[in-house]
């Protein structure tokens, strides 16, 4: 039985060969964490006193949460502008968001030099309210919890049919109040990313003399907020398509086509803001001054301009392959802008160099693998994805685990 528009678990075996590879990467990640805990951050990362933030911040934190902003992007359209027709996209985006944010938080924990002092984040008397990073830390932590609260109904819906009568009764009791609280949860879920996604750019307001003038502007918060939404829309299209390729999930092409006019305008707005701000500050000349900074600036602009213009066309959006291509460009544009702001445009002082170690890149890759593994586990066991076959024929979790153990 198919039930288009309603979410259903995919079912199927958990311990596939691909999943085993992901788990092997998870073990590698744990080993790297152990090395870091014993020998210090310098043992796993090329970060140094000049580049005190390496790739883990722009990649694991800012890009992962940028991709996870699909939950925010679709949420804004669905809940603030009250367009219920996009609801089939929400759960998958929220699940990916919960994973993205959990990974980002985990990465920060490993990257904190003095992690045992983390209690200060939970102790308001010592807070420095001028610190943009404090705001980011509090918001990201709160939002990660909110995302899991949003995921919970999917789990509860599944547990209603659990074999244990105690569990199913508890799930039935918990679900209605949980959903009554949803308007306030959703309001919080849209407020928190607005705050911290802009602040991820605001972090570099203070580095007025260290950040290249093509990137340093009072509009950093707005540019980061806009681009997290374009990235989020891109990520939603990518995840929908990847799920279709992997599991034969059906895609509502008309829905995605209609939705993706939003990132078109946001992308073009980002380009206009970027160029307008430079023009007002009289710095546009730097863009054509040559050199590596001008080159990457122009590349960024192209990565926002091209999908922005292409997505304006309804015919372009209706073509699944072309929409996928533009979504990829949206994600790449947002990612490049983040890497540029955090690394390329950041010039601490003459003489400092930074290039990540292979093990440092492996840390990020393995972290992403853990995220994919948990996402797959959830969509197979819980009603997250829409447009999939209901898993009446799929083996129950316990049977699947037994089958896997027996192999």
């Amino acid at each position, binding site marked *: 039985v198919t039930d288009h528009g309603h979410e259903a678990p995919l079912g199927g075996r958990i311990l596939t060969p691909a999943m085993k590879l992901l788990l092997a990467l998870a073990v590698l990640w744990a080993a790297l964490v152990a090395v870091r805990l014993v020998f210090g951050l310098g043992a796993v990362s090329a970060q140094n*006193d000049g580049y005190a933030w390496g790739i883990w911040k722009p990649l694991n934190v800012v890009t992962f949460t940028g991709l996870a902003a699909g939950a925010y992007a679709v949420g804004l359209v669905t809940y603030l502008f*009250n367009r*219920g027709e996009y609801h089939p996209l929400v759960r998958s985006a929220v699940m990916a968001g919960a994973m993205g944010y959990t990974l980002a938080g985990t990465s920060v924990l490993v990257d904190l*030099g003095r992690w045992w002092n983390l209690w200060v984040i939970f102790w308001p008397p010592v807070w*420095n309210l001028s610190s943009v*990073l404090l705001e980011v830390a509090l918001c990201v932590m709160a939002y990660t919890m909110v995302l899991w609260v949003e995921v919970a109904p999917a789990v509860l819906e599944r547990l209603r049919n659990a074999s244990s009568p105690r569990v199913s009764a508890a799930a039935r009791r918990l679900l209605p109040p949980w*959903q009554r609280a949803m308007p306030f949860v959703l*309001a919080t879920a849209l407020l928190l990313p607005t705050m911290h996604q802009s602040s991820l750019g605001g972090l570099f307001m203070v580095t007025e*003399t260290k950040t290249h003038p093509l990137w340093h502007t*009072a509009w950093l918060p707005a540019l980061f907020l806009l681009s997290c939404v374009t990235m989020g829309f891109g990520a939603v299209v990518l995840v929908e398509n990847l799920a279709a390729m992997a599991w034969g999930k059906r895609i509502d092409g008309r829905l995605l086509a209609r939705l993706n006019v939003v990132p078109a305008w946001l992308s073009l707005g980002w380009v206009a803001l970027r160029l307008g701000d430079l023009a007002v500050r009289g710095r546009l000349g730097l863009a054509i001054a040559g050199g590596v900074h001008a080159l990457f600036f122009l590349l960024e602009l192209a990565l926002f301009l091209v999908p922005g213009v292409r997505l304006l066309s309804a015919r372009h959006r209706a073509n699944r392959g072309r929409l996928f291509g533009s979504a990829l460009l949206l994600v790449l544009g947002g990612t490049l802008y983040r890497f540029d702001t955090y690394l390329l445009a950041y010039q601490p002082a003459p003489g400092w160099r930074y290039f990540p170690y292979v093990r440092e890149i492996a840390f990020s890759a393995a972290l992403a693998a853990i995220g994919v593994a948990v996402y797959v586990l959830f969509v197979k066991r819980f009603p997250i994805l829409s447009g999939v076959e209901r898993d009446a024929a799929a083996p129950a979790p316990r049977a699947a685990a037994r089958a896997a153990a027996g192999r």
Partner: protein
Amino acid sequence: VTPRGAARISRRGALRTIAAAGAAAAATGVAEAREPRRPRDDDAGMLFDATRCVGCRACQTACREANELPYERKQANGGEYDAPLDLSGSTKTVVKLARGDGESAYVKTQCMHCADPACASVCMAGALHRIAGGVVAYDPGTCVGCRYCQVACPFSVPRFQWFTAFPAIVKCELCRHRDGKGPACAEVCPRGAVVHGRRGDLLAEARRRIAAAPDRYHPAVYGERDGGGTGVLYVTSPRVSFAALGLPTLPDHPLPQTSETVQHGVYAYGLAPIALWSAVAVVQLRARRKPEAAGQGREEAE
């Protein structure tokens, strides 16, 4: 939802928002305009005179002893040396050679003790903070090791211990642990190149030296206004620029002034956040009452 319905929602939302914002403003009051914190004459400070330093590095060694910092051991030709090349997780001051215009000079580097320090502005729990008397102090008890101070400091002064399981941020605190005896580096300087005192007196001394030998000094005192003013002041020869000494060109305003103005402006009285939160909550609560028009109603029907 019809456009008419949406308009009703936003009007009601706006009323609630204004009421809530008023309450929040009364409760918090966090959004005052950010004034620069200016240096004071009786702040603790230090004067470095690049025309007098002979590069003996007595200051480096005295600092190491006074702060109980480990040697930076380097081996060469069978000999061993304590030879720090830069500030680091075990070195709070270091003497470097600066190449000027046909003339070189030694330059001592350490924390500049800004009047309005960027490191303290960005520090999540105030581990870095300016204490009464003008020293920018570090309290490892509330430091989580995020290293935002390193990113924010325009002088790249704070250093991190990268190769230990239990690291800390390391930077000069003007020997505040020596009970008013002042920094050890100034105490041992044989040439009066490193002088400790009150900032006002040091500024007067710097001007006196410049006026007494205008041909031997650059007319400016670095740190008087740079970056909003610093507790550590530099004078140099006209042939070795401040840039050559490794001192960055900074605006006259403190860097946190701009960043905090934007940050506090966006969150002025919590207005914008409360407005957004209320708008979504109101839209969703209304949508629930009319399930047929709602994004959320479908779930309840299940």
